């Protein structure tokens, strides 16, 4: 009877849970692990549960540890919990070699698999980046507990703190920054990003153009680096103006193309400068509901609930509690792109233009070759975009700095030391290869993977481009403190070469942006400070040369 009950359960039922309990199961069937009371025989267990239980392995008969395939894990777990023969029942969790992520429902997030979320977690995961969710508000549900949610704001006259009374905004925030690797529910694309809730839609999901325009302005004023707009409607000049001002202020604005199933991109996605996002399903084909048109810049998974497990699964509000729900829409595609933009910023992309270039060049080309009005530049592929960031910026800097250290060592007559070359390369290019090490993503590798000149970004994007950090000042102090020491001189020289090379490179390529400077002024600042830093490196190498000679004579 129990078996028939289980198989009759609707697979797409919302996955509700009490707020205090870890949600146990994925949206589809799978393996349920059942720890029986010791001494229970398989026959007794099968009779009591009505399930075709098997021992996990012959050796587990002693511990009475069994498993079974079920159609609905959550329902089966609930049903078994009340049986006296069962001590514990929980879904089997596939554990990677280094156990990341341990979110039990991550396997249901096909969308994160195809966009390369794992690479993103290993390259900053949005650390230091603020993403404004301009929507129905955001509520800190159980699977957002570990996510930084900034104080919110509301323009709808409802809850003043930007809390969500609908569920849409919380779901969108989950795609961007759901708490990840917390052994609960699902993952987010940029879990280290900070979410800024801006409520511009009522709890019915409707808003006025002036609320949304004001919300966009407020997000810019509160320091958003990325603005997510999973909303739309008829063209509004006021709203388009707000988007234009945000883009001019250096904010990345991502907006949903619309759900009209026809050609014609809604507003604000149709504003020049905004990144308009169309939606794809699990089969990488334009979703049945998605709008398309000449403004579409990129597509991303928005889900297709006509296919089992084909929606986008995140945690959101359900009554007074929370539930893991599958949603579909260009609303769901948009936060994939916003989250990817946050990851690219945290991985060292220096400007909105660079982020856009990486998103578009890295996208998987679908539909007609090259850009087309359905998929834009293609379907989001964050993994590829990050690879491009490494190949275009980090690897060249790594090599150029090492080569510069080699040449400057020769020119100054010092012995060419491996430590100097390595220090130069790591300082300029960052230890970006740490992203491929089989260790869980963490703050230390996030920092070490960045070039030293980009370290302030972990404090917040505000500090990127702090002019004193992009200058000869810190190298000067470093030189005086460590440059003349026997043990640290060669290392210091290498780091000076790394910083100097990166400053010059950043000026010439326009990839470093000191505050308040543009064009030739930025170029001048970076090149002059870079050359001065390289001068300090030569001086430090000169000191090591003298030590070499002294050492050689003694």
């Amino acid at each position, binding site marked *: 009877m129990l078996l028939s009950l289980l198989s009759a359960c609707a697979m797409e039922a919302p996955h509700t849970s009490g707020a205090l309990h870890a949600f146990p199961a994925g949206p589809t069937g799978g393996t349920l692990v059942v720890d029986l009371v010791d001494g229970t025989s398989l026959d007794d267990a099968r009779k009591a549960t009505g399930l075709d239980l098997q021992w996990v392995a012959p050796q587990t008969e002693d511990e009475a540890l069994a498993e079974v395939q079920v159609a609905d894990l959550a329902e089966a777990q609930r049903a078994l919990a009340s049986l006296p023969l069962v001590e514990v029942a929980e879904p089997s969790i596939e554990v990677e070699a280094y156990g990341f992520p341990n979110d039990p429902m991550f396997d249901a997030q096909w969308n994160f698999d195809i966009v390369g979320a794992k690479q993103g977690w290993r390259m900053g995961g949005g650390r230091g980046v603020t993403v404004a969710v301009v929507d129905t508000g955001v509520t800190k549900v159980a699977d957002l507990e570990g996510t930084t949610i900034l104080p919110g704001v509301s323009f709808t006259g409802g809850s003043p703190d930007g809390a969500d009374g609908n569920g849409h905004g919380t779901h969108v925030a989950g795609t961007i920054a759901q708490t990840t690797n917390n052994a609960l529910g699902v993952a987010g694309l940029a879990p280290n990003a900070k979410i800024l809730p801006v409520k511009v839609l009522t709890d019915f*999901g409707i808003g006025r153009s002036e609320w949304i325009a004001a919300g966009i302005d407020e997000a810019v004023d509160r320091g958003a680096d990325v603005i997510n707009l999973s909303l739309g409607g008829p063209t*509004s000049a006021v709203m388009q103006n707000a988007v234009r001002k945000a883009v001019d202020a250096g904010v990345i604005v991502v907006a949903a193309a619309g*759900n009209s199933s026809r050609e014609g991109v809604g507003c604000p996605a149709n504003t020049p400068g905004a990144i308009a996002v169309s939606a794809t399903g699990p089969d990488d084909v334009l979703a049945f509901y998605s709008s398309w048109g000449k403004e579409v810049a990129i597509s991303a998974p928005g889900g297709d609930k006509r296919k089992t497990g084909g929606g986008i699964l995140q945690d959101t509000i359900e009554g007074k509690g929370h539930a893991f729900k599958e949603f579909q829409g260009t*609303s769901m595609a948009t936060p994939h792109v916003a989250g990817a933009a946050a990851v690219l910023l945290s991985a060292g992309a220096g400007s909105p233009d660079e982020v856009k270039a990486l998103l578009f060049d890295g996208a998987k080309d679908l539909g007609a070759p090259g850009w087309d009005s359905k998929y834009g530049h293609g379907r989001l592929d964050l993994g590829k975009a990050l690879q491009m960031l490494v190949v275009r910026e980090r690897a060249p800097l790594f090599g150029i700095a090492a080569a510069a250290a080699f040449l400057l060592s020769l020119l100054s007559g010092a012995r060419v030391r491996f430590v100097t070359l390595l220090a130069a390369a790591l300082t300029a290019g960052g230890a970006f290869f740490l992203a491929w090490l089989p260790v869980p993503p963490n703050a230390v590798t996030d920092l070490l993977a960045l070039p030293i000149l980009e370290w302030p970004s972990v404090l917040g994007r505000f500090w990127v481009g702090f002019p004193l950090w992009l200058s000869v000042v810190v190298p000067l102090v470093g030189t005086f403190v460590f440059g003349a020491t026997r043990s640290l001189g060669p290392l210091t020289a290498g780091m000076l070469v790394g910083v100097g090379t990166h400053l010059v490179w950043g000026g010439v390529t326009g990839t470093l942006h000191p505050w308040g400077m543009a064009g030739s002024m930025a170029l001048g600042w970076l090149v002059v400070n870079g050359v001065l830093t390289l001068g300090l490196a030569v001086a430090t190498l000169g000191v090591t040369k003298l030590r070499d000679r002294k050492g050689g004579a003694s």
Partner: protein
Amino acid sequence: MKGKLVRVDLGGGGWVLEADDGKRYQLAGNVPKELDGRRVEVRGKSVESFGFLMTGDPTLEVERITAL
């Protein structure tokens, strides 16, 4: 305005009126769930509004909705 009330599964979900005039309207306001799929009469005004439904249809702000 009369027509069929339809629940649309986009974003967080919303209501659309498939009106007898052949047009579709997104509905803003409180719509009782039990009316899903039924013929209804909606009283309200046409408004320019934004939301997550984004079906591209005009919005009707619901003042009163009754089953027919």
